[in-house]
């Protein structure tokens, strides 16, 4: 067996002139949970679709458990469970029939099929919903059903594209719990999400993608540290009076940046870790007639770290790992439909 559950090397995917994935390389070890983060259009879904054998790269290699995704898609499909970002459910089909169909389609027969369905329904708590029509389920229930479907063949690797999108907090907690249990069972989970705080709690490593390139690969603490090392400490400031005064004031200050305006103040960044400088800033605020009622240091969260990192990349303060040179022989034409009728 290969050392890595997922191995990607110099992967490119072009859609005409659009470089959706631009020479990314990474490895995810067996049994780990990796979060895949990036803005919309960063190339997350394209990468995940290539790994799930649903798309082909323009160039590069991708392997699941040592099996080449491009050359042996059928073998790879037996190893992966796939949860797409959005999907419809079937009309006139109960939850049990839905799982029964996929179990049949995966080649399970008779007693073995019933056993697999029972196990999956128990795990995802779908037993009470067995006779409900699948298109009448809530979003949370639907996600549990989709997770159940993707686990029917007991895959080693689970690829989940935005599974928490659109879920209410309760459903999100349930999903997070299920993912944790799966991770404990030793499954490799590759999960994309926009909710970075949740990914930080769940994932062993995080993979940040920007414009088709990996800009960070490591655990959440390393991202925070790398962002911290760029300088700056966050402070939460509460004012008595017009919060606009804080932004007007911050513009004129040399080492202070307003990150976010709030109803009663805002979040500022002071570009030094020296507590003495922070005290200077506070005294300047008071001196400039800002009616400060609260001023405290804030813990940097993943969102801040990610946004810092992106803005530093945009400003040229942080280097992005350069992919190997690629001279496309012929850019493949765009595959979007161009219907005249």
């Amino acid at each position, binding site marked *: 067996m290969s050392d890595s559950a997922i191995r990607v090397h110099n992967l490119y995917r072009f859609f005409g002139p659009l470089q959706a994935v631009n020479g990314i390389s990474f490895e995810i070890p067996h049994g780990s949970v990796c979060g895949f983060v990036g803005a919309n259009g960063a190339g997350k879904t394209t990468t995940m679709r290539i790994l799930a054998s649903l798309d082909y790269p323009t160039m*590069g290699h991708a392997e699941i458990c040592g099996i080449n995704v491009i050359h042996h*898609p059928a073998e790879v499909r037996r190893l992966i469970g796939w949860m797409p970002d959005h999907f419809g459910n079937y009309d006139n089909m109960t939850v049990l029939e839905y799982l*029964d*169909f996929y179990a*049949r389609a995966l080649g399970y027969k008779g007693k073995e099929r019933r056993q697999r369905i029972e196990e999956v329904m128990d795990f995802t708590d779908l037993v009470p919903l*067995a006779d409900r029509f699948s298109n009448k389920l809530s979003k949370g229930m639907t996600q549990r059903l989709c997770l159940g479907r993707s686990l029917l063949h007991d895959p080693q690797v689970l690829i989940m594209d935005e599974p928490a999108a659109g879920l209410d907090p309760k459903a999100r907690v349930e999903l997070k719990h299920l993912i944790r249990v799966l991770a404990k069972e030793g499954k490799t989970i590759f999960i994309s999400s926009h909710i970075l705080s949740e990914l930080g709690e769940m994932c062993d490593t995080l993979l940040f993608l920007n414009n088709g390139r990996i800009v960070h690969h490591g655990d959440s603490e390393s991202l925070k540290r790398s962002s911290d090392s760029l300088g700056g400490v966050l402070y939460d400031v509460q004012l008595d009076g017009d919060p606009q005064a804080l932004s007007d004031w911050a513009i004129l200050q040399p080492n202070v940046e307003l990150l976010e305006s709030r109803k009663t103040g805002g979040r500022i960044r002071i570009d030094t870790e020296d507590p003495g400088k922070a005290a200077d800033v506070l005294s300047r605020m008071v001196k400039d007639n800002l009616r400060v009622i609260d001023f405290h240091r804030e813990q940097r969260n993943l969102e801040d770290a990610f946004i810092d990192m992106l803005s530093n990349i945009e400003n040229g303060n942080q280097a992005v790992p350069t992919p190997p040179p690629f001279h496309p022989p012929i850019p493949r*034409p765009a595959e979007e439909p161009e219907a*005249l*009728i």
Partner: protein
Amino acid sequence: MKISFPQDFPDRLSPMLVKELRQGLRTRSFIGVFLTLQIVLGIILLGAGSAATSDQAGSTISNIIFIFFSIAVIIIQPMRGMTALSSEIKGNTIDMMVLTRLSAWRIVAGKWSALVSQSALILVTIIPYLILRYFFGGMNLIGEVVMLILIFISSATLTAITVGLSASPSVILRSILPMVGIPLGAYAALMMILFSGMGGGGSVFDFFSLESTESKIAISLYITACLYYGFFLLSIGTSLIAPHAENYSTLRRVVACFVTIAAAAIGIIYCDDVDVMLVVYYLIFAPIFTISLTEFGTLVPPVVQKFNRYGILGRFLGIFLLPTWATGVFFCYLLTCIAGISLFLVRDSYINNDSIVVGMGLLSGMVFPALLVNLFKMYGPSRVSNYILFSVASGIIALTLMGIAESLSSKGLLWLFVWIPPVSMTMTDGGGINDDALLVATAFFNMLYFAIFICMAARNYRRSIRELNHSGS
């Protein structure tokens, strides 16, 4: 809590068929059709029973049963296939299905067979009415049974057409065309049967009683055409949803090649009319040209490796059989060569200029829209619909020009548009045109299209192979 598993379908049935039957038998459209048919037929038989003394009662009941059965299985059932694949594509469930062990072909075939099974269920339920009708007398048993089977085969073919087209991204192709085409086609077929005087003025059922050689040949050809078109349309739907690694194009082309060779052999031995053979070839070529010349496949290692395994022979066959439009061009011209040679070998044949012009017009009529699709670089799954749009548009232009020329009593105008393939065919109709000049012009444009298309195809094929090698295969 104990789960009670459904025991309705055995394991040996295709998962797709089981899924579709579970869903389909619960749909309002099926239940509505099923119940309406039973109620209507029951009332009719009760009414006919009271008028049993009439001589015509038996045939009237037969006609009514067949009309209602036809409406159910030729119009309503195929129309239910219009959303078969589009709903899966829209719901993003196709990806989830192709990641199981179901191939794209099994998905499409399962959708089709479920609808055909429901039509079969409707067929089975009308049999008791036909048995009751037998007691009214005057029944042409073989004729009625053959017609029942033919209606069922027509229904299966039309269902294949709608299911296949339902994978198309074009709304016109997958919805409006079947919604308009199927009722119109069914009406036209009905009128043709009723008024063509088949069976020497006898009942419609007499024609289907297989007594004359003519009817046997006609019915055999009809069934063959249904099988061929049904297979092709399902295959088109399959290609539209299949992942790149699944290649259905090669099988499709091999089938078309065998059918062409068989038609050529039968034509050379039995046929003595070049024009009939031209029509037969056109019917064979229309679907394979449409899909092969517009195919938008990306050559991927799992597909190409299968050809490379056979060395030089495999690579040579790949030039005609790999799933791209470029190889489609080579393949279509290969089929044209087979057909062309056979036309010259037809017994006692006399090929006049008009036949040659019509033959070349039919060929370029199929090639020209594909040339436009590729020249305008229309990529993606809409290529087929764009091809059909260009075909229909060039036909409409030709008919319009012909109308204008006739109203002006001068066909000179048509020479300006002779490069549009159907225009040259309309010029063979009636006098006022120099036949030799028309032949030369048609041949010139055919050669021009051939040269452009072959060059484009060769360039594209070389690029595809180079790109494949570059990607590390």
